[in-house]
């Protein structure tokens, strides 16, 4: 792999409107290139190319320097990198980009990019791929063969993309702002197997996923960090060392380096999951409720729709409408002896037609069309009903819809005419007008109230509605009725008084909803959450509520499972809080599985964790005194290696490290072994 070159093609040297303020330092850039042993870099500032500065950089650093620009295009950022032989032309094109994108809110379309750079194939294009703001697939499709490599934000995403043949070839760069204050350089670079460093040869290499790597010697199995002072496996790393040899210190450094805008670290600190105080149970329960908010929302989805459906239903208004109709009818009838010719006109007492919204018919048409168009279950449908019949049914229903719709339009038109005539007649008579009423709508609203009340009765009955096994525990979700207004108040974060409304809670759903509506600051979208109490509980494998210790175990397993969403998992001495059986049977497997898809660093003193978990790589920390000062030294190697090596070439015996750190030395280990043998033979 002698041809492997180390490159960083995403470097900022100008503070633009899209950056925080910084002052470029050529000395810092020189140090970075030197310390990181970079063979090539690209200068890629936001929507700008500073030719003078580029020439200064080119003449000052010991690496090949490519001119480039990072352009805001259609919601993503694209690095456009050029050969350095046509700087004048490149500068004028970049100036056009600067004019198109004057502020941090602007961006250009792909068409504009093509107008400015008519021959995009001359350049190397690297979009943000698995990095924010990521390129959209539609933009990627439109760019076609012009893009074959994309930038990723961390080793985890790099490894995923390398393994996935359908993905772009991943590239990992620093995205650094080069400034005076920058003292510790990140290890975010890419190794590429290329002979000569030219844009053309790099473009060829970037088309081949076998030619890019995370580390110089070990491909994608390892990545560099801590300013290239440490190499770790992209799988499971176990960090060993006696007390006060810098294990937590090293974890903190890793955490700092990887907690960036683009990368997230899950750091499970020592003792962080232990039971803390008497409120632990309540806090655990509250946290559980918060973390399960999505399940609650999903469970109450249909109920939320029902509450929304009650929005325009008002029982008082219905009563009033009926009352008005009846009293006006009776009054009109009682005045029959003194009716004039205007009031005697038939249309004066004529009712408006009741209108049908044809919803049922619309639903039927939609259902039939869904069956006709469905591809997934076409075989089953074909066995029972022919496509022909279904199409015929759809056409017949659509024709019926058109017929009825025409009829409804006619009725609506006639209603307008009747209304108009009645208004005219009213002007000339003193007879009482009969109030309008739509008995269909009125009765439907009463039905709605009845059904809603029925629904509220059902939902308040206590039920377990979800039981899910989670790493040997059972997560149980239950619904029940609220016991008091305080319980209701605990549902939402906002402190409001529910005392008046709660008086109607056990009466009927409609009345309770009516009272909730009277609470000024309560949002309509929250009403549905206040009808039923949802609780979550974690049960142990025997189905009993968890103890304090089991709560901690559950939390650890959850934290580890959640780590899937992160780029790196750091765990500091899980054995401090848990017993060996739990660690061996539950935790080890989970960590091992997780390390198949992301880098994990596990600090331990425990042989159950350290030795049984079969790590991919070992890191041994040692404390040394150099010129009166404490220095932490890191030795690394594979678990099967005889020796572990430090960066400066020192070695230590792996076997001794394992026995000292995990078994408290070879003598105690021997003694323990003998004791177990005696017990076993008894």
């Amino acid at each position, binding site marked *: 792999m002698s041809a492997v070159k180390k490159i960083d093609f995403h470097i900022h040297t100008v503070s633009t409107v899209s950056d925080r303020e910084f002052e470029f330092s050529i000395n810092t850039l020189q140090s970075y290139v030197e310390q990181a042993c970079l063979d090539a870099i690209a200068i890629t500032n936001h929507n700008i190319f500073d030719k003078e500065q580029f020439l200064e950089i080119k003449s000052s650093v010991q690496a090949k320097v490519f001119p480039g620009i990072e352009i805001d295009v259609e919601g993503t950022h694209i690095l456009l990198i050029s050969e350095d032989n046509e700087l004048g032309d490149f500068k004028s094109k970049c100036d056009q980009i600067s004019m198109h994108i004057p502020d941090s809110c602007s961006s250009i379309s792909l068409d504009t990019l093509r107008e400015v750079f008519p021959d995009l194939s001359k350049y190397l294009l690297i979009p943000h791929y698995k990095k924010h703001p990521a390129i959209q697939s539609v933009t990627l499709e439109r760019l076609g063969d012009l893009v074959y490599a994309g930038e990723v934000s961390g080793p985890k995403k790099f490894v995923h993309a390398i393994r996935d043949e359908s993905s772009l070839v991943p590239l990992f760069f620093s995205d650094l702002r080069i400034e005076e204050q920058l003292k510790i350089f990140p290890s975010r670079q890419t190794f590429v197997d290329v002979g000569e460093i030219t844009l053309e040869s790099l473009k060829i290499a970037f088309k081949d996923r076998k030619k890019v790597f995370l580390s110089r010697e070990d491909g994608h199995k390892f990545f560099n960090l801590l300013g290239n002072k440490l190499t770790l496996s992209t799988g499971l790393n176990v960090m060993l060392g006696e007390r006060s040899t810098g294990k937590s210190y090293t974890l903190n450094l890793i955490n700092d380096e990887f907690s960036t805008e683009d990368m997230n670290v899950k750091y499970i600190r020592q003792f962080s999951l232990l039971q803390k105080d008497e409120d632990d149970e309540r806090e655990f329960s509250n946290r559980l409720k918060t973390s399960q908010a999505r399940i609650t929302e999903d469970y109450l989805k249909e109920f939320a729709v029902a509450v929304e*459906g009650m929005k325009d239903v008002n029982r008082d208004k219905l009563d009033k409408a009926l009352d008005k109709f009846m009293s006006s009818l*009776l009054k009109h*009838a009682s005045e029959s002896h003194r009716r004039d010719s205007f009031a005697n006109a038939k249309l004066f007492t004529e009712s408006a037609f009741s209108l049908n919204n044809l919803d049922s018919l619309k639903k039927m048409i939609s259902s039939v069309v869904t069956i006709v168009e469905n591809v997934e279950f076409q075989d089953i449908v074909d066995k029972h009903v022919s496509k022909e019949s279904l199409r015929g049914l759809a056409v017949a229903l659509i024709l019926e819809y058109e017929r009825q719709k025409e009829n409804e339009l006619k009725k609506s038109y006639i209603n307008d005419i009747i209304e108009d005539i009645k208004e005219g007649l009213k002007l000339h008579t003193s007879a009482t007008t009969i109030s309008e009423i739509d008995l269909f709508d009125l009765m439907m609203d009463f039905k709605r109230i009845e059904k809603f009340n029925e629904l509220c009765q059902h939902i308040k009955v206590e039920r377990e509605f979800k039981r899910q096994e989670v790493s040997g525990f059972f997560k149980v979700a239950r619904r029940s009725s609220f016991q008091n207004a305080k319980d209701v108040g605990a549902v939402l974060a906002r402190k409001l008084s529910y005392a008046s409304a709660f008086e109607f809670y056990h009466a009927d759903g409609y009345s309770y909803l009516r009272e909730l509506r009277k609470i000024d600051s309560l949002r309509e979208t929250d009403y549905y959450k206040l009808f039923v109490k949802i609780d979550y509980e974690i049960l142990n494998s025997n189905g009993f509520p968890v103890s304090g210790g089991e709560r901690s175990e559950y939390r650890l397993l959850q934290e580890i499972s959640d780590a899937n969403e992160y780029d790196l998992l750091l765990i500091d001495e899980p054995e401090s809080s848990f017993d060996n059986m739990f660690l061996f049977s539950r935790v080890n497997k989970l960590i091992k599985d997780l390390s198949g898809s992301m880098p994990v660093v596990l600090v331990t003193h425990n042989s159950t964790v350290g030795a049984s978990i079969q790590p991919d790589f070992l890191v041994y920390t040692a404390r040394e005194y150099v010129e009166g000062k404490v220095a932490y030294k890191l030795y690394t190697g594979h678990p099967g290696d005889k020796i572990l090596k430090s960066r400066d070439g020192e070695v230590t015996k792996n076997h001794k490290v394992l026995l000292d750190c995990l078994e408290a030395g070879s003598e105690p280990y021997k003694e323990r072994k003998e004791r177990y043998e005696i017990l076993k033979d008894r």
Partner: protein
Amino acid sequence: MKYLRIDSGKGYFSLNEKDWHELDSINKGDLLHIVSSGLENGFEMDDPKVGLIQNKAHEIIYHKLHGKLLELNEQRTRFRDESESLYKEALEKYRTT
């Protein structure tokens, strides 16, 4: 079930087909009862032919209610379909019996 009847030039209503009351004594509770029950069981009413009801007040009320209930009778199937689909998904999900 029969709700409106014409007898001896007057209009009558009933909630149970046994007790018949003169139409000018009907109130909103009675109408609500007739409508609710009729939507379930169908509406039966005497046809108000011209000149059959001599009492003018009864004639007006009868004609109005007859028209309204007749229209509702035609929509009974639609009412049943629509009311059955009300909160159907929610009731199926949260039902306890």
